[in-house]
């Protein structure tokens, strides 16, 4: 069965700023969904709410038709942050953290960590201090750390921002390889080239609202909304 995630009427306000305004969206596994939009449009807020890190002021999220709490969302999803965060431990310990929480055996953990590091091209990095690796390596470690938990919802916030082309290519390839019916993948990016390469569906968020959602080709070649047209033709500064 294909997994589904339904977001209904989400609203979130920070002080006086309306980050999300009655945002509704349906997502299905087997697709990579790209959220595009200018800075401050609400992409990261939406990801944080789906990840269970932020509570919406109003609205709810359904997974496979059932309403889920933020605690449940935290168990089902993993968010890879734009600014990578590393524990002050070895790369191995960073990757093992989530698996230890899930009470997996050390043998299983070792095997999964090794496989995950191979997948992101960091085979011999286990013993290195995570914080002493480069920015590109840290982003790949973050992705590996998220993927080995086998989340039902994989969320990525600007996963290749400020990375070199090689690291970006490896990350995109790894995300693409994870595409399956059981996993809902959402990537927030304002790299339109990446959205084109990676996504099956693109959602344009503007001022906390979805102004257009369509298949990638349709949205880029024939945008229906004037703001979207300007955005994809690089006529809006962001």
């Amino acid at each position, binding site marked *: 069965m294909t997994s589904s995630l339904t977001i209904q009427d989400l609203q979130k306000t920070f002080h006086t700023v309306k980050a999300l305004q009655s945002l509704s969206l349906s997502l299905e596994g087997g697709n990579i969904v790209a959220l595009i939009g200018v800075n401050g449009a609400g992409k990261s807020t939406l990801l*944080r709410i789906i*990840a*269970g*890190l932020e509570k919406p002021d109003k609205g709810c999220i359904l997974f496979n038709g059932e309403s889920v709490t933020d605690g449940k969302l*935290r*168990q089902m*999803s*993993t*968010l890879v*942050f734009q*600014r990578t*965060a590393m*524990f*002050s431990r*070895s790369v191995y310990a960073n990757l093992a*953290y*989530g698996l230890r*929480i*899930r009470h997996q055996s050390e043998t299983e953990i070792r095997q999964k960590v090794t496989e995950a590091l191979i997948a992101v091209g960091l085979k011999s990095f286990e*013993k*290195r*201090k995570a914080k*002493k690796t480069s920015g590109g390596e840290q982003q790949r470690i973050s992705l590996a*750390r998220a993927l080995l*938990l086998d989340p039902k919802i994989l969320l990525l916030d600007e996963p290749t921002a400020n990375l070199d082309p090689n690291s970006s290519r490896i990350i995109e390839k790894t995300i693409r390889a994870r595409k399956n019916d059981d996993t809902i993948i959402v990537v927030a990016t304002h790299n339109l080239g990446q959205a084109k390469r990676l996504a099956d569906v693109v959602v344009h968020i503007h001022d906390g609202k979805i102004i257009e959602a369509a298949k990638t080709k349709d949205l880029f070649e024939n945008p229906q909304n004037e703001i979207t047209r300007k955005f994809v033709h690089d006529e809006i500064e962001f």
Partner: protein
Amino acid sequence: MPDIIIQAFQKAIGLILSGNAEFYATIYRTLYISGVGTLLSCLWSIPIAVMLGLYSFRGKWVIRGLFNSLIGVPTVALGLLLYLFMSRQGEFGFLHLLYTVNGVMIGQAILVTPIIISFTASALSASDMQIRDLAKTLGASSLRTDLTVMRETFWSIILAITAALNRGLGELGIATIVGASLLGSGTIFSGTRVLTTSIALQINFGDFGLAMAYAIILMIIVITIALVISLIERIRQEEAPFKVWRVLGRSGGQ
């Protein structure tokens, strides 16, 4: 003046090598009272610091401000207050803590509480919020998230505890008033004497050389503790396997 300092160093070395039982007992008692007092304080200070550093609630900043202001509380004032509470007519007189090692220890535990709370809460609240989010998004419970943040700020917490220990080692007011350890050798009160009160006592006796020798030994203890903590921290930052000589040989930070 330099002659006094040279003589003091000679006396300090002489004392260390002398095998003098009372001298070693004083050092042991100093470390015991301040060490156990600091650890005792950690029992309540760390949980309070976690609450103040990681959680939001009404009145939090008032409480933090109060603990910040109590960092500099004069030890004689606190010693006097404790004396009143611990004296026979005081609320805690029935515990018979006055003029005892335990009394001084509890006094020091109270003295260092604001230091541990303020420094630890500051370290925790200054910790990267993303570490909390990261732990949560990897599936950590609230407790595990707090423990992870504490682990990430471990050396800042150790620094807070070290500062508290040093404050305890260097305090005079509580040891003097609660321990009554300025009274002469051979009295029942000499059993509460620590290095600071020994310094004060030798000044009273006019033996500045011996007072200076005690002061040097106190300084050596305080500096050694700080250096050992720094060394361990640097070793921990190294890639495994640890290379102590590389740590010792480095001058700059990383």
